[in-house]
């Protein structure tokens, strides 16, 4: 008998026993039997219901007429009018471009720079020095976006900022940073890199340290240089972790940090063409101009795009490695 038929038989038996015992292991029975475990789940379920599941119904606001913030359910259905309004403006294109564009750059930098630094830290001959560097790299992660926006002001302030004083000392013209949108793509990328690189480095460092030393020794015996060892042993061993991290970030592709895009540029109107993302747009439409319908439509657009990305990646991951799939 081939093993295949045996497993089918076993499966059939399992199915039978499952059907037979269904009555005894139904949800209610389980609820009574494991009462304590369900009670443990309860507080978490309540918080999730409030923070996550209840608001999901609110996505329907996007299809309703929402004149004021005061009424919960607005005044009747509005069909796709909110969306027509949203996509009728340039804003829809600008916020989509900015959101995706910045995220792609952040993902690329967040992959290459931390990996390079982690490998470098691991290579240092002075291990104590490596530890000190690592601690210093990690500091920016602890600072709030408000504090970081104060730090950015220290650099970019028109009159007193370090950068303008430096330009002046070099005999160049000052730049009015907060009214010069052409510089902000660079500024935002630099600030974001400054905040996150230390954190990402530590994530990769753990994997770099974990590479089996015997592989290097074997390679060294075969005459491989240290660079060749890193290129052919260390980097390939980081790929699985890198894939997971990139996938997580791609899943957040349509979300941006309000701290970076709203606080650091100080919500300056002139900068909106390059700092406006879906999140800042929703916030401004909702809180500042009180356009609930428009804000809801943009929020819906964001949620749907995000969901599509996640389901796509999940399907791809599932195809290659079932255990790593999220659903």
């Amino acid at each position, binding site marked *: 008998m081939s093993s295949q038929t045996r497993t089918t038989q076993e499966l059939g038996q399992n199915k039978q026993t499952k059907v037979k015992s269904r009555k005894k292991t139904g*949800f209610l029975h*389980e609820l009574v039997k*494991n009462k304590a*475990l369900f009670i*443990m*789940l309860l507080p*978490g379920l309540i*918080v*999730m219901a409030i923070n*996550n599941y*209840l*608001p*999901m119904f*609110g*996505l329907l*606001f996007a299809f309703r007429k929402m004149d004021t913030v005061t009424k*919960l359910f607005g005044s009747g259905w509005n069909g796709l009018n909110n969306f027509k309004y949203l996509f009728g403006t340039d804003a829809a294109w600008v916020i989509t471009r900015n959101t995706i564009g910045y995220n792609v750059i952040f993902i690329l930098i967040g992959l290459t720079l931390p990996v390079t*630094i982690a490998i470098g830290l691991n*290579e240092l001959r002075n291990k104590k*020095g490596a530890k000190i*560097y690592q*601690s*210093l*790299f990690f500091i920016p992660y*602890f*600072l*709030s*976006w*408000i*504090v970081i926006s*104060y*730090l*950015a002001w220290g*650099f970019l302030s028109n*009159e*007193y*900022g*370090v950068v303008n*004083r430096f330009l002046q000392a070099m005999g160049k013209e000052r730049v009015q940073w907060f009214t010069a949108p052409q510089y902000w793509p660079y500024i935002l990328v630099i600030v974001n890199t*400054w905040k996150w690189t230390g954190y990402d480095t*530590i*994530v990769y460092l*753990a*994997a770099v340290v974990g590479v089996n*030393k015997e592989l290097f*020794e074997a390679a*060294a015996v075969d005459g491989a240089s*240290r660079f060749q060892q890193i290129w052919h042993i260390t980097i390939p061993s980081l790929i699985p*972790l890198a894939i*997971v991290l990139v996938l997580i970030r791609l899943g957040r592709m349509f979300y941006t940090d309000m*701290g970076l895009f709203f*606080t650091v540029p*100080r919500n300056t109107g002139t900068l909106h063409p390059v700092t406006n993302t879906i*999140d800042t747009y929703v916030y401004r439409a*909702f809180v500042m101009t009180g356009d609930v319908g428009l*804000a809801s439509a943009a*929020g819906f657009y*964001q*949620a749907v795009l995000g969901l599509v990305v996640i389901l796509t990646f999940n399907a791809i991951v599932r195809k290659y490695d079932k255990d790593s799939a*999220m659903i």
Partner: protein
Amino acid sequence: MAKQKVPSEAGIQISKPANAIWNVIFFITAIMCVYPLLLVFAVSFTDETQISMAGYTLFPQKLSLSAYAYIAKNMAAITRGYGVTIFVTIVGSAIGLLIMALYAYPLSREDFKYKAFFNFLAVVTMMFSGGLVPTYMVYVRILHLKDSLFSLILLYLFSAYYVMIIRTFYKQNVSTSLIEAAQIDGAGEFKIFFQIVLPLAKPALATVLMFSMLMYWNDWYGPLLYITKKELYNLQYLMYQIQAKIANLSLIANSPESVKDIPSEAARMAMAIVAIGPIILCYPFFQRYFEKGITLGGVKE
């Protein structure tokens, strides 16, 4: 033995010149990480006239404590901000930790039939959310949490990501046989959880507690949405307000009356120092747990 080891060690190390180059790169990077902080620190001790002459500098020629005198004069608002921040941070992270530790436990139990379902419920929240407007409606229109500190606490009470960290730790460190033995001894589920599981999970719990505390401490977005009363501002939001006020002022030129309330350049930087203070002091202690937590979360099991 020892003699053999020396050449092999050399084969798997970078050369001394390469080591020197890396050190130079890292030294510069480290300065880039710390420089903005040192700058703000220096500015907070700089004399106002010196600032208007030389701008912000790392080594001011004329020192002054006037910025901190301003802080001392406005101590009431700052103390209140601190109070709100500390209250929300302690209450939020403690309750949140308990809720997440509780939720993670049934998910870690192999014999719990619905663990996959409840796990799924949590994972969904990591990937999909209603967004700003619906959440605001639930908080303000249904729960009436506008101008309530509870809104700031509720926001970050439960994170599926941390639940996964705790659950993985339970799975790896609390053996099924230990739980079974306790059950045979007649211990109830709660007794097992509080007396056996929680003590074994201390490292993971400490890590999640740190992450959670940092999130509450640094929160400014929650107050931006849900707090309008001045006495409920937390520290970060107080700083946000000052910044926003200045941004508005630059739009409406020549409004001397409001200029009066605006803290000087140095005083604002002093506020930043006051807000960073406790975090930097806790930093060495925090760092250990954070590294552990990042490693736990980063390497997906």
